[in-house]
């Protein structure tokens, strides 16, 4: 279990409970269960309290929590017959983006998402979920394939942003992102998206432009990272708490703004505390979103998707 900074008091209590139980295991005469249970209750209350009112900056930390389920976890648990498809047919296969054919409840579809990796080795392999142009071009290719065969598209968004590298720029990072967003606005099949962790700027828009966008309760979606915003507007990256506040990047604010269509509740203590329950909830949300869209004609889908974006933001926080 990785604890976040604000979870330190919680780590202490849970640590104590664990210590007691370890002692009891070593020494059979000790009866610590009552005491340990009391600590459990205390920890649970504290956890509930901490997570009932997370500040935007704390939400950023939870959204980036290394123990949250990642794209691969969702794909493996929710879909059957997942068949990864690779490559942009031009330059490379970008491991920051995974995707392929799969079935959800028997229905064939295309699933595409950012994968961050779960340990040092896999994080490097997946470039921490930061895609290069090839990643977006692979996604474009897969969306196009889905479109031609009438398969719905599901995207899972979890990226700090597009990779800011030399080669990425040389190979047209901007163009790749622009074309991916354009593809999202051109396909005539249902397109649903879930932000499962971090929705970082243009790198997220390229996948999250959808008929329906759901966000996990503690996920974020932002034009810039709070640190980046703080260093530009406050001239001090340490002012990220204020920046996170000002940017309105929480799922709750985005729902109010009409950017997110639904919020998927997370278990108490965040997705990382109960990965299975979180994955299940995301699965139900995807099914629910797709169900309504599958009845619509291709032209109606396209028209409504575009209308949604044309109207977006017209009323600000009053929406």
């Amino acid at each position: 279990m990785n604890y976040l900074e604000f979870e330190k008091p919680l780590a202490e209590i849970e640590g104590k409970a664990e210590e007691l139980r370890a002692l009891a295991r070593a020494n059979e005469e000790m009866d610590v269960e009552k005491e340990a249970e009391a600590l459990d209750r205390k920890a649970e209350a504290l956890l509930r309290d901490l997570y009932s009112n997370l500040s935007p900056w704390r939400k950023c930390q939870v959204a980036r929590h290394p123990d949250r389920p990642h794209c691969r976890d969702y794909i493996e648990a929710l879909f059957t017959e997942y068949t990864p498809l690779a490559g942009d047919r031009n330059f490379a296969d970008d491991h920051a983006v995974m995707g392929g054919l799969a079935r959800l409840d028997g229905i064939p579809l295309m699933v595409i998402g950012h994968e961050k990796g779960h340990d040092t080795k896999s994080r490097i392999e997946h470039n921490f979920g930061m895609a290069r142009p090839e990643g977006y071009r692979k996604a474009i290719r897969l969306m196009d394939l889905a479109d031609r065969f009438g398969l719905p598209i599901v995207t899972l968004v979890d990226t700090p942003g597009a990779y800011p590298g030399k080669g990425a720029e040389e190979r047209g990072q901007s163009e790749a992102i622009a074309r991916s967003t354009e593809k999202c606005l051109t396909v005539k099949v249902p397109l649903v998206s879930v932000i499962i962790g971090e929705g970082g700027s243009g790198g997220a828009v390229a996948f999250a432009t959808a008929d329906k966008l759901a966000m996990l309760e503690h996920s974020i979606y932002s034009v810039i990272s709070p640190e980046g915003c703080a260093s530009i507007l406050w001239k001090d990256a340490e002012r990220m708490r204020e920046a996170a506040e000002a940017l309105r990047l929480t799922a709750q604010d985005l729902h109010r703004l009409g950017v997110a269509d639904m919020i998927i509740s997370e278990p108490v203590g965040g997705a990382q505390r109960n990965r299975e329950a979180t994955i299940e909830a995301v699965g139900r949300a995807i099914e629910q979103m797709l169900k309504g869209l599958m009845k619509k004609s291709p032209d109606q889908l396209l028209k409504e998707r575009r209308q949604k974006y044309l109207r977006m933001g017209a009323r600000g926080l009053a929406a």
Partner: protein
Amino acid sequence: MNWISNYVRPKINSLFSRREVPENLWTKCPECGTMLFHRELAENLNVCTNCDHHMAFKPRERFKALFDGGIFTEIDVPQPIADPLQFRDQKKYPDRLKAAQKATGEKEAMLVAEGEIGRTPIVAAAQDFSFMGGSMGMYVGNAIIAAAERAVEMKRPLILFSAAGGARMQEGILSLMQMPRTTVAVRMLKEAGLPYIVVLTHPTTGGVTASYAMLGDVHIAEPNALICFAGPRVIEQTIREKLPEGFQRAEYLLDHGMLDRVTHRKNLRDELITITRMLLGLPPAIKGDLPSPEADAQEQAQEQAETGK
């Protein structure tokens, strides 16, 4: 438009292309340091007469130089809700907006207009870098949508001049949402079969590059313009190495296949006319400055009267 009416005598042209500029003002070229007489600089389309450095060109000035006789009609842009996020950093967003409006005399960071270039009716949109870094917020999104809608309505091409540091952070997620919003606008043009030409000017970066600026049918950049998604400083911090000379400049992008052309500002208007007329299947136009369509018509009428036709 037929062949004959395209035939305009070049002598009148210069009379109409003079722009009003204050006397006795000097500007220092940020590139070579030469002191340039304001009037001379304006005559040269804000390009340094010594080193050819392309300085910022305000949308209004650009349109005066672009449209025949400097005549254009502004297209109304729906005003978005003010300060949609109630954003506060060290200043309030509305105060920053007011300051920008006062400093530039403009309402927002994009100007949309219609008129003729080489007697070719077009819609044009130009981003104003001097207005909060040209940043893309709801207004810029609305401007591009208004431009596309007008172009579709009138069946005209859209020429867009980009210039922006990126998204308007003070509009948070709603600035990011201008990426899909403006992409919908671009799709309107494409599906109506209308040319969409992007002129990328210095600098065009971030979410602007990663949406409407990179979705043109033809991409033309001004010389040495910085064009990128992630800025050079961010990249240097990430990869911890020095970037090559000219990295992310227009010529570099041309070499890497992201642009069709890099064009000097003095040739830009003619080139835009040439390209749009070919894409629209029209005959070649007469090059050079043209008087306003009205002045042209007046002169023809006068000529007809004099020759007694």
